[in-house]
């Protein structure tokens, strides 16, 4: 039983990170119909930007700020202006393929300019345990969970409680009408790209101390988050959060109770089941499109 509790906590901590990345997937999809297959690499890169800042002599806190800012410039602004805008005119599929190419480009660039080897990365949460309901739970797991939950709550508050959030939602739901009533749609779309970049940088900061900084570490994350976004509902932020947590827990339970070799298969099987039985995702909204 204590084993199950540990697995749930560890699964929720990993799932919270998947959720951050999955939320980015849904945001980009809602506002600009972009499926970003480089999302995993977007999580990998900020850690290296922070490491580069530290190698240049910056203290950890400054490296975090610089890393997040640089990520927002490169992975938010740069990504939108240099890749999404020019490719969008050619349709969703060419754009999706372009993001796959971008994923390979980022990986190879990190390998080339940094190293193919893994590097250690400091943790923002100290190591140690606290006792919860008689179980020793690591501070790191709790820290990851708390930061991820705060980020998601902040985002939800921004979307639902502020005028800016309402404008973003309007731009996502019906850009034409939003434009007519005076919402600066283009600026709102750019804002979602910046938010996505912030979320992936945050995910990078949380996951890299555990997974280590390595050029290939985005592959697993990108895949898990993509599955989480589809399972939860690609067009709902709350769906992505639920999907992330669910996949995190499922992955850990599968590794413990099914087998380590098949741990990656279990979320996939779950994904197929969801697509067959509830294509819009667990919390998603059915969309109809004219072809």
């Amino acid at each position, binding site marked *: 039983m204590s084993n199950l509790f540990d697995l749930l906590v560890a699964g929720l901590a990993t799932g919270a990170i998947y959720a951050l990345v999955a939320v980015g997937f849904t945001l980009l999809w809602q506002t600009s119909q972009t499926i970003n297959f480089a999302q995993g690499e977007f999580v990998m890169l900020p850690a290296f930007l922070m490491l580069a800042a530290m190698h240049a002599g910056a203290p950890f806190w400054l490296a975090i700020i610089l890393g997040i800012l640089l990520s927002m410039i490169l992975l938010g602004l740069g990504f939108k202006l240099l890749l999404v805008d020019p490719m969008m005119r050619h349709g969703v599929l060419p754009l999706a393929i372009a993001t796959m190419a971008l994923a390979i480009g980022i990986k190879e660039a990190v390998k080339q300019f940094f190293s*193919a080897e893994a590097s250690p990365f400091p943790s923002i949460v100290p190591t140690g345990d606290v006792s919860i309901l008689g179980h020793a739970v*690591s501070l790191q797991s709790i820290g990851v969970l708390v930061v991820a939950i705060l980020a998601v709550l902040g985002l939800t508050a921004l979307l639902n409680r502020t005028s800016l959030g309402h404008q973003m939602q309007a731009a996502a739901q019906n850009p034409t009408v939003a434009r007519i009533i005076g919402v600066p749609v283009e600026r709102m779309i750019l804002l979602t790209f910046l938010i996505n970049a912030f979320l992936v940088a945050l995910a990078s900061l949380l996951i890299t101390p555990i997974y*280590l900084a390595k050029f*290939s570490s985005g592959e697993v994350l990108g895949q898990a988050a993509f599955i989480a976004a589809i399972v939860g509902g690609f067009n709902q932020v709350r769906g992505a959060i639920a999907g992330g947590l669910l996949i995190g827990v499922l992955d*850990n339970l599968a590794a413990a109770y099914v087998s*380590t070799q098949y741990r990656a298969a279990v979320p996939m099987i779950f994904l197929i089941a969801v697509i067959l039985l509830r294509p819009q995702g667990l919390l998603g909204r059915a969309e109809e499109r004219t072809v």
Partner: protein
Amino acid sequence: MKTTILAGALLAFAAATSVHAQAIKLADVAELSGGGATVGTNWKNGIDLAIEEINAKGGVLGRKLEVTHADSQSNPGVARAQVQKALDAEPYVLLGPGYSGSVKVTAPLAAEAGIAQIMGGEAAELTQGGNKFLFRTSFGQQSSMPKVAKYIHDEMKAKTVAVVWVNNDFGRGGRDMVTKELERLGSKVVADLSTEAGQADFAADVGKIKAANPDAVFVYLNEEESARILKELKRQGVNAPLMGETTLIGQKVIELAGDAANGARGHVGLTTDAPVELVKQFREKFSKKYNYVPDHNGLKGYLAVYMVKATTEKMGKVDPKKFADTLHGLTIKAADEPGILMDVTFSDTGDIDRQSFLVEVVEGKQVVKQVLPKVQ
């Protein structure tokens, strides 16, 4: 007519001189990227350092050494293609790969070409198939695992042991050997956990170890995964003593795992912290050249080149066909060839006999606790 004869003689002389001065070509195929990048990079740097030293002192039998490096991407399929390409260029000796799985698929190619292959793999089965061209640079599992099991049983006094291994040729070989030995000695394996190469998340595996509550944990993974599981073991508060091999307490693991590596113990065939003067000198030279402390793979690459030198000098000529025969049964003494660092004997199967060490990580440093002598 005279002119023709003269020209012919001159040509023959020129050809002979160029053959004499021609460099001895070695081919290296290593894990320069992918999961084994730490292994391959250390191995490659060790080779380059040794070649630089040897060439600076006039080469081998008056000829310089030259090496080409190819990247196996830590993938046996790519390793096979790269080895085939390297063998097509007819090297004197093939160096690498470091991963047992890659060695397994490439060894038949080198054997067929009749080229000796000096590699870094440690899986027991590699030298048990009767391959007459394959040589180790470190202990095979059949030499190291009995020592490991004995230490867990006798010194750690563990009645129950959890065995965590990586699901590839290297991991399976080690797990089979250590499990057999532990059971023979009377220690019970209470958790037998297979993990995947490149695995990032070890929370579930550590959860299982915690549930099994063993007296000791034997960890047999590659370097990066070792670092990740050490961090996770610390995160989940597993306090059972940890025992492993070189891959658990290597320099790269200590760097990656930080504090979490403290207390881990391992049997090490080669370590740069060995209390041996020549090894200390190697460590200084390597650190000066590459700005980091090498792990055992750096030593292996370095030794591989000095094995080539010592064997060639023993033959007195550069003969790729006789190389393997000469190296079988050869004892190289560090007093005669300082580059070999410690006295070593090669068996007829290509296995090595050399002294080894029991190491513990204390405050981020490898500390040699015991020196285990050469078997024969």
